[in-house]
């Protein structure tokens, strides 16, 4: 996945420590998606993915930071969202990305489902925490 580090400099930041922060982060992402002119279906998919990843970060990573920004690439515009936590990391990422697998009490579709909902998906995990970066493009 391309590095969108420059975009993050101007990003909107939401600290996620409670479940109402997840709702806030979702609102920020939705507003950006609307501003970026994403069609309604894409908006909904992106916001849902952000909701899944934000809640994962809260439940399994003990909270973290969500950064979201508008990005442009070869004439199309999209929304970049980054989820960074300082949690224990995911021990077995291959298993965690499988449908229906969960270490908690959810449906086990959060990570794998979120990946299907967006155009670009990148996950880096280790003992220092987990970072998920996603991009959803306009058309």
């Amino acid at each position: 996945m391309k590095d969108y580090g420059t975009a993050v400099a101007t990003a909107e930041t939401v600290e996620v420590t409670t479940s109402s922060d997840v709702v806030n982060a979702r609102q920020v992402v939705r507003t950006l998606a609307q501003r970026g002119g994403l069609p309604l279906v894409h908006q909904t998919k992106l916001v849902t993915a952000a909701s899944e990843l934000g809640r994962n970060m809260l439940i399994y990573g003990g909270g973290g930071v969500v950064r979201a920004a508008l990005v442009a690439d070869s004439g199309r515009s999209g929304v970049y969202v980054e989820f960074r936590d300082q949690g224990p990391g995911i021990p077995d990422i291959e298993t965690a990305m499988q449908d229906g697998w969960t270490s908690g009490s959810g449906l086990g579709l959060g990570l794998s489902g979120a990946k299907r909902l967006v155009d670009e998906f990148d996950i880096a995990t280790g003992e220092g925490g987990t970072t998920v970066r996603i991009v959803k493009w306009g058309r």
Partner: protein
Amino acid sequence: MAAESSTHLLVETLAANRDTFLDQWIRVVGGDLQGRLSTAELGRELGELYDSILAAVTEGGLDGRAEQFDEARSLLIELSRSRARQGFTPTETARSVFALKEVLEPALATDEQGARTYLQFARLLDDLALLTTEAYIRTREEIISSQAEQLLELSTPVVKLWDGVVGVPLVGTLDSARTQVVMEKLLQTLVDSDSTHAIIDITGVPTVDTQVAQHLLKTVVAARMMGAQCIISGIRPQIAQTIVALGIEFGDIPTNSSLADALRQALTEIARDAEDDVKGLL
């Protein structure tokens, strides 16, 4: 020695000029609040406060956290609470205390001894004003959490749509706390209204993620255990596509795009059940 004589001077000044100071204090605070509080009420509040501060200073010095100030502190907390409820700002609330400084300044800051006394008294008032801000914020937090609770109750009505059919129009975010309220209300209404069908309408739910889906599924399973059929309606096109991409399966739970379709389906089922009943009797 110096501290004692300061206290002494302060007590003397406060006691001797009580009515003048109180008058000025009420005028300054009243000016700040711009008539949103009656002078009589303000006079009573500040009068009580003035007397309790004076009594506390007389008894034992200028430490706002000391035991002698218990009464003054509880008066202040009460004042802050009522200000917070009436919609005054925290600045206006704290200014009610700070204004006493302005009143005392010309009377005390005439010589060195007086100035020192004034500074010590100012420190005491700073402590007390901080207390009002703290009490103010605590009250606001109480108000917010009670409103959140009210909202939770308000936003989850269960309505009777037809004989034997109840509807649950969901609006907003569906978290665990709300699901619990919805589920309890729905199950109770099913019993009370003797209904066989429940329609859960999610037109007003902007985001259906796995958590929302899981909560919906739990509610449906609970209703089924009570012998009621559940239909989920209000699935908009973008939500349908998102649910499919996420991989959520609603299994054999019937879903519909509109509440009207869901109601028609429920009524059809009820009619069919009634027909079966008649046949069974014959």
